[in-house]
């Protein structure tokens, strides 16, 4: 990683109430494996972004790429973690 860069991590999750067939299947697999403590699983994904250190207005830009591309606002929500 370039020393002149910043990092941000974007977490994309399904909105509450949106069906997550993968999460449900994973939870069922856990139960089948004997792990009966796990009541539900919600899946999601994350993106690590490397950003030019001298970027201007980067919060807005990160927000923009999240709602335009990384997440689908109809079904997903996102959180940004700056490093």
């Amino acid at each position: 990683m370039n020393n002149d860069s910043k990092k941000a991590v974007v977490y994309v999750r399904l909105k509450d109430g949106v069906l997550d067939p993968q999460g449900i299947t994973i939870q069922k697999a856990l139960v089948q494996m004997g792990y009966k403590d796990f009541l539900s699983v919600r899946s999601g994904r994350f993106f690590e972004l490397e950003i030019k250190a001298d970027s201007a207005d980067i919060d807005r830009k990160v927000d923009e790429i999240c709602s335009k591309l990384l997440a689908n606002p109809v079904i997903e929500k996102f959180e940004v973690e700056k490093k």
Partner: protein
Amino acid sequence: MKFGVVTFPGSNCDYDAYAAVRHILKEEVEFLWHKSEDLKGCDVVVLPGGFSYGDYLRAGAIARFSPIMNRVIKFASAGGMVIGICNGFQVLTESGLLPGALIRNTHLRFSCKFVNLKVENNATPYTSACRRGEIIRIPIAHGEGNYYNFVGDIKALEDSGRVVFRYVNSRGEAAIEANPNGSINNIAGIINEEGNVLGMMPHPERAVEDILGSADGLKVFESIRAACASLLNTVGGK
């Protein structure tokens, strides 16, 4: 009239759509390359099935930002006819031309089989060759065809007759066992408010002659031709 079939990297039903139009419907058709912004004077744009950009990120999410889609979105916004089939439907919801989203099938499997579709609305440019309530048989082939939207938006779609196709059993009932992917209300295809953009998960282009198992899909293409013909007549032709 002329059809345009978009080819994205990863499209795999573009040739099927092309062949259906050219050889069965016997109308003019051209491929539209994803990097181009030229619709080549086409009267209707087909966004075909497949796995555009490998379905990376979300199905249709990357294709939506391709140069040709910039042009297609403008074309649709100006009233141009656009039909998205399968991955094309996913591209349409991602681009905001149609509401809602297509998520993973509830059973998580890729489903490839013939289904019965009820034509809920035949007063559209894509279904005028069908009777209202007619059951047509065409195939599906998708892993992410589970139509999702918020309760209020579903109600709005239903109340305004914008649910065009629904998965049904042989008796025409939208039963749970007839739902191949978990779509809310067994929704298989919807149309936008203006009535010029249709998205459907099933593949009409794969059912255009009896040797393919059904010719019911041809009705969608015949409807489009009729709609274009009347449109061209009203505006004085080209």
